[in-house]
């Protein structure tokens, strides 16, 4: 026998649940999330699913069109590139490289940025004002430009471009965290904790930061799409990942040479970057508007 409900229970969703409910309403964003999951799935499992080694060259299978073209074959579903490498495997590994590295970079930049931002948010005086000014001018410069400058100093290469992008992403997180900490510091719950004798460190880690999760996710999504764009742009300009490695931007720039005879060799890697960016931006957008409408109500 099921329990009899005397009182209609009122449903009080937690903030997180509330955001999720709002998010769920946005079909595009949910679609984006599915796509995002799909890419996560690919980058985790591509060694199992990829039909070939992405670096394996087959000189007898050069520039085979993809399966849906008239003279394509089923062995290489996405066709092959100018060196006879299987494009499907290369695109899968390319997603792993571009997307995977971007995730790592964003996490690193987030950690460093939040730490510095918290310090900046808690400090006052000349130190804070100088830091703000430097930050503000840094924020105005697009990350890609900063990354190109750093690469010019460090020299080209994947590792250097990773350093460059991580460094270029940090200011945004500092900025966000600093503003958030400043704003929260004045609120009652922080004041209460302070009166209880919490140190500034405890204030930040126990009281303020736990409230920042959603903002960080939204900012993280933005940073992720920037980072993907930057990594592939640097690869495309031959400043980042270098030739044989299956990085999507690098593959695109290799594809230019055969663009006219093999349009799929630029359409597919470019399409993969585009889809990744699209899914992340949709999720980011959905989260942002969900958060916004939660805050309004």
């Amino acid at each position: 026998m099921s329990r009899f409900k005397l009182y209609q229970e009122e449903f009080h969703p937690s903030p997180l649940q509330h955001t999720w409910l709002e998010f769920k309403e946005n079909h595009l964003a949910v679609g984006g999330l599915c796509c995002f999951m799909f890419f996560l799935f690919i980058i985790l499992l591509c060694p199992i699913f990829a039909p070939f080694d992405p670096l394996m060259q087959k000189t007898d299978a050069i520039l085979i069109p993809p399966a849906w073209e008239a003279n394509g074959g089923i062995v290489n579903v996405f066709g092959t590139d100018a060196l006879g490498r299987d494009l499907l495997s290369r695109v899968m590994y390319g997603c792993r490289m571009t997307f995977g590295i971007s995730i790592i970079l964003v996490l690193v930049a987030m950690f460093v940025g939040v730490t510095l931002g918290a310090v900046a948010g808690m400090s006052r005086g000349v130190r804070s004002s100088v830091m703000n000014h430097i930050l503000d001018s840094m924020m105005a410069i697009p990350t890609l430009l900063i990354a190109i400058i750093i690469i010019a100093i460090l020299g080209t290469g994947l590792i250097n471009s990773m350093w460059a992008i991580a460094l270029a992403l940090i200011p945004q997180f500092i900025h966000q965290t600093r503003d958030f900490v400043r704003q929260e510091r004045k609120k009652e719950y922080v004041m209460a904790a302070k009166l209880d004798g919490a140190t500034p460190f405890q204030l930040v880690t126990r009281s303020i930061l736990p409230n920042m999760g959603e903002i960080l996710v939204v900012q993280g999504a933005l940073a992720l799409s920037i980072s993907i764009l930057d990594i592939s742009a640097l690869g495309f300009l031959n400043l980042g990942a270098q030739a044989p490695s299956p990085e999507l931007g690098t593959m695109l720039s290799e594809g230019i040479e055969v663009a006219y005879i093999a349009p799929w060799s630029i359409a597919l890697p470019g399409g993969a970057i585009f889809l990744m960016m699209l899914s992340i931006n949709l999720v980011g957008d959905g989260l942002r508007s969900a958060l916004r409408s939660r805050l309004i109500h």
Partner: protein
Amino acid sequence: MLKVILRFANLVVLTLLVLSFFSFLLAYMFPGEPLANLTGVVRGNEQQLEALGQLYHLDNNFLVQYWYYLAELFDGNWGLSFSSGLPLASEIARTLPASIELSTYALILSMFIGLPLGFIAGLRHRKTTDYALLSLSVLGYSIPVFWLAMLMILGFCLQLGWFPLSGRLSLLYEVPRISGFILLDIMWSDLENKSAILIDALRHLILPTLSIAAFTTTIILRITRRSVIETMNSDYILAALARGLTPWQILFRHGIKNALMPILPLIALQFTTLLTNAMIVEVIFSWPGIGNWLIQAIYQRDYPAIRVGMLAVSTLVVLFTMSIDLLIRLVDPKKSKVERVAI
């Protein structure tokens, strides 16, 4: 007011000093000997090296060297490029306007499209038009600019043959350089077939401009939309409505001004994004701008060129941002800095 300007001047000087010091340090940060990085001479004999060392005051301490570096910079003596052997000052004077020109046209174009669409979307908030425009704009800012440029080349140049795919002007035409901005230079020049040259220049401009404007257009659309929504929801609009003003009166008397004012500086700031995207697209369209030039310099490890090129670009970007900042402060002293509205 005066205080703000003084503070600004102070900040500009400081920033420029920091940037120039940084670019000065680059000679030491690049791999290899500083002297070789500066001069390109790797296997000179001792006398030669010593003479060169003296020329760059390498035997003095850091600060003295920096002082001489600044003096040279102000003299307009920016050194020579390794690869072409040309003076860098003239190379930058040639390439930088080309990039600025491209970015400016793209900014104008994206404002022409982005602002009205943003207004439409904002006014039709949560309606089909709004959703359609919003979804379109996600497409627009998800598409990598270099891929878009390549697709455009494939479609419009190679398949349809509508537009040329490289450079600023057909090489058959030679326009004397006055300002470095090609359209202005053509109009100022006294060549015979001006209109033909002008059309040729426009044909070269269209695709690069479109491909970098796509991203910025969607950003402007979203900024505008957000601002319009907020403005239209504000109390004074409701009050005006209550007082019986017609919708058009409300929009034109209060709406447009109040929605645009806070976002104009933000839109202006998009210029830096445009410049960066222009640097990438220049490589694809062989546009003779600073990005193309700088990236070639990085490939060829042309250290003097990288050093001065970086200084020029970062100075431009930082000065531009700071000027916008100053403008905002002058117009509205209450604001402490540019607010970054969510898009």
